[in-house]
């Protein structure tokens, strides 16, 4: 997985959605949340009052993310971005999570500039997932 760090194109105008957004909004992948277990981590960011809220939960398998699930509150771009990301993050390392930037989702999903702030909230959720992973590692480390 490679991080995209450049600024995204301005994206679509408000109220229009690209094919990828339509596909993920209509058929979200990996919706839901894992029950807390030893190999499960979780990262959350945002509030409904802010217009966007995300929870990402994942199983860790061999130092990589095995499967990722999401919960999302927000506009169609938000729901589609979380669904798309749940597939994108499969196999990611902790370093990949730290390096991930919102611009990749904004680019791929043609998110309009007015909504870039919501993609930043998604980035926060990804980085929270990395922090949870870090804490899991610390807890598992020998005394």
């Amino acid at each position, binding site marked *: 997985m490679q991080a995209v760090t450049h600024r995204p194109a301005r994206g679509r105008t*408000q*109220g229009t*959605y690209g094919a990828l957004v339509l596909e993920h*909004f209509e058929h*979200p992948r990996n*919706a839901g949340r894992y029950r807390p277990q030893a190999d499960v981590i979780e990262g*959350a960011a945002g509030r*409904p*009052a802010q*217009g966007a*809220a*995300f*929870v990402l939960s994942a199983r860790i398998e061999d130092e990589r993310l095995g499967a990722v699930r999401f*919960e*999302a*509150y*927000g*506009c*169609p771009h*938000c*729901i589609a971005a979380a669904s798309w990301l749940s597939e994108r993050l499969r196999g990611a390392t902790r370093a990949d999570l730290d390096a991930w930037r919102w611009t990749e989702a904004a680019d791929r999903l043609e998110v309009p500039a*007015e*909504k870039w702030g919501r993609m930043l909230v998604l980035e926060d959720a990804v980085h929270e997932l990395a922090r949870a992973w870090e804490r899991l590692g610390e807890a598992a480390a020998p005394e």
Partner: protein
Amino acid sequence: MSAGLPIYLDHAATTPVDPRVAQAMIECLGPDGAHGNASSVGHEHGRRARALVERARAQVAAAIGARPECIIWTSGATESDNLAILGVARFNADRGRHVISARSEHKAVIEAFKQLEKEGFQVSWLKPGSNGIVDPEQVEAALRPDTQLVSLMHVNNETGVIQDVAAVGALCRARGVAFHVDAAQSVGKLPLDVQAMSVDLLALTAHKAYGPKGIGALYVRRDPPLGLRPLIYGGGQELGLRSGTLATHQIVGMGAAFELAELEREADVERLTRLRERLWQGICALGGVELNGDPQRRVAGLLNVSFHGVEGESLQFALRELAVSTGSACSSATDEASYVLRALGRSDELAQSSLRFSLGRYTTQEEIERAIEVVRREVARLRALAPGAP
């Protein structure tokens, strides 16, 4: 429902032209139609157009209990509101610079008052209760010796809430203060009587009552005459208050639409009340929904609902099988959540997750049943995706 198009539940935004109205308009067009200039009464073409214009004026006047000479043709309710508010305030500026309105008014009224603020007027903005109603006592408390105008809408375009304009009118009449009412949403839904309501100025539009877009009217009290400064100068039509060649076919359409609206009002209201109640019961069964506006004092065909746990833009997009309006910021033309719902004390979140269903003359029971089915399915689907879903 037209094939391939969403179910139209946005009649508070605009209505389709009734075929009977369209026919009356068509008869004005073409070489054999009433194409003469209604001001050119020196020949038969002009006199023919003038007769149709005056017939329509009488039809509109009859729908609001007014004399025909009190009706001024405009381009719609926005122009009527502006002419009334700016016209009266500017004409009487030397008598007082205080005016009163409410935060839940239509933008056509709010922006006209903001213009007055720029011109040195002081505006008292009344805050409606959580049910959307402005208490006449609030108006009474806000009146001052230098108040020269009060403006209050009859039916709110977002919630359908009905204001007690007669009580406010009586207050204003007793104090000698001009009273303007935006009645864009009232025709065909409620009886209107400018005398009984003590209204001095009343803004009307055709396209909310199955007439054409681009035509409206302003009722102006004539007895005693009310001073008004025009917004448009030119040929001096409409007693010098609104210059410009009269659009005969549009005017004929408005007259026909208002006559039909009055004739069919009771039957329409009874049918739409039934359909709206069925829609509300069907949506209510979801749980986590809130009715916006007073549950009793509202017009028949309008239902404004906020949905907990669902974001407004996603909701509207998920419901694209239905043509409805939303309080969401992202998909409306403005950059803020519904200011009307926020004026009622709703949070940004609930204002954004609101939908306005407005039913109309051609809405069927089957369409309402389908709307209930789609709303239930999509709200449940979006809630299941949200954080904290059960």
